[in-house]
C-alpha cells in the first residue's frame, strides 16, 4: 500500500513537472505572447517540485550507497528498501503542494468559493433530508 502510494505520488510529481515544463518551453520556443512563466504561483510550484525531486534523488542515492558499502558482521542484517526507505512524507508534501496550488487556481483563495461550498453543502443536506423522509414513509431511500 505504501509502495503503491509512493509510486503514485512520485508519478504525480513527475507528470506535473513535465506538463509545466512543456508549457514553459513551448512559450519560450515559439515566443508566445501568453507565457505561463509569467504566473508566479505556477513558476514557484515548478521550482519547488524540481527541488523536491532533486532532494529525492540525492536521498535515494545516499540510501543506496549506504546499502552497497555496508558490511555484514556475523549476526547482523543489512538495511534495505532503496528509494522506498525514504520518508513518504516527502512525496505527500509535494503532492499536497500541487493540489493546493490547483485549488487556489481553480476556486480562488477568496470568499467566492464559500458561495459554491454553501450551495454544495445545502444540496447534500437536501439529499439527506429527502433520504430520511423517504425511509420514514416506507419507500426506498434511493
Amino acid at each position: 500500500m505504501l509502495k503503491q502510494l509512493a509510486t503514485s505520488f512520485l508519478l504525480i510529481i513527475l507528470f506535473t513537472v513535465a506538463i509545466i515544463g512543456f508549457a514553459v518551453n513551448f512559450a519560450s520556443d515559439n515566443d508566445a505572447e501568453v507565457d505561463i512563466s509569467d504566473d508566479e504561483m505556477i513558476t514557484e510550484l515548478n521550482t519547488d517540485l524540481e527541488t523536491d525531486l532533486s532532494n529525492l534523488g540525492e536521498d535515494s542515492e545516499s540510501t543506496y550507497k549506504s546499502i552497497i558499502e555496508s558490511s555484514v558482521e556475523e549476526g547482523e542484517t543489512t538495511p534495505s528498501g532503496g528509494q522506498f526507505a525514504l520518508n513518504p512524507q516527502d512525496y505527500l508534501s509535494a503532492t499536497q503542494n500541487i493540489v493546493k496550488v490547483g485549488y487556489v487556481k481553480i476556486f480562488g483563495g477568496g470568499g467566492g468559493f464559500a458561495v459554491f461550498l454553501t450551495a454544495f453543502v445545502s444540496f447534500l443536506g437536501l439529499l439527506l433530508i429527502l433520504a430520511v423522509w423517504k425511509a420514514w414513509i416506507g419507500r426506498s431511500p434511493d
Partner: protein
Amino acid sequence: MIFLDYLYNLPNATSGLDEILIDTATSVTGLIPLLLLFVFFVVFLGGVGLQTKRLGTADYPLWSVVASISTFLVTLLMSVKEGFINITWLAVVIVITIFSGVWLFLDRKITEV
C-alpha cells in the same frame, strides 16, 4: 426595413481570419473558454462512450487525461498570439491537466502505472 443595434462590436473582416477570431473573442469573452470546454468534452465523452460500447466499462481517469492533454495542446497553440486566451485561463487548463494526472495515478495499482 428595421435595423437593430448589434449587441457586440462586429469584427473587422478585412484584416484576415486571425483578426476576425480575436475580435470575436474580445467581444464575446465566453467564446474561447467554452470552445476549450467543447474540445475537452468531445474527447472525454466520445472516448468514454465508445469504450463503454466496446467493453461494457470505461477508463474514466485515462480519458480525462487524454481529453485534458488535448485541451492543453489547443490552449498552447492559442497562447502564441495575443487576444485568444489570457494567462488565467491558461493556468486553469494546466491545473485541470495536472488534476487529471493526479486522478489517473491515484486510481492505478502499482503494476498498472
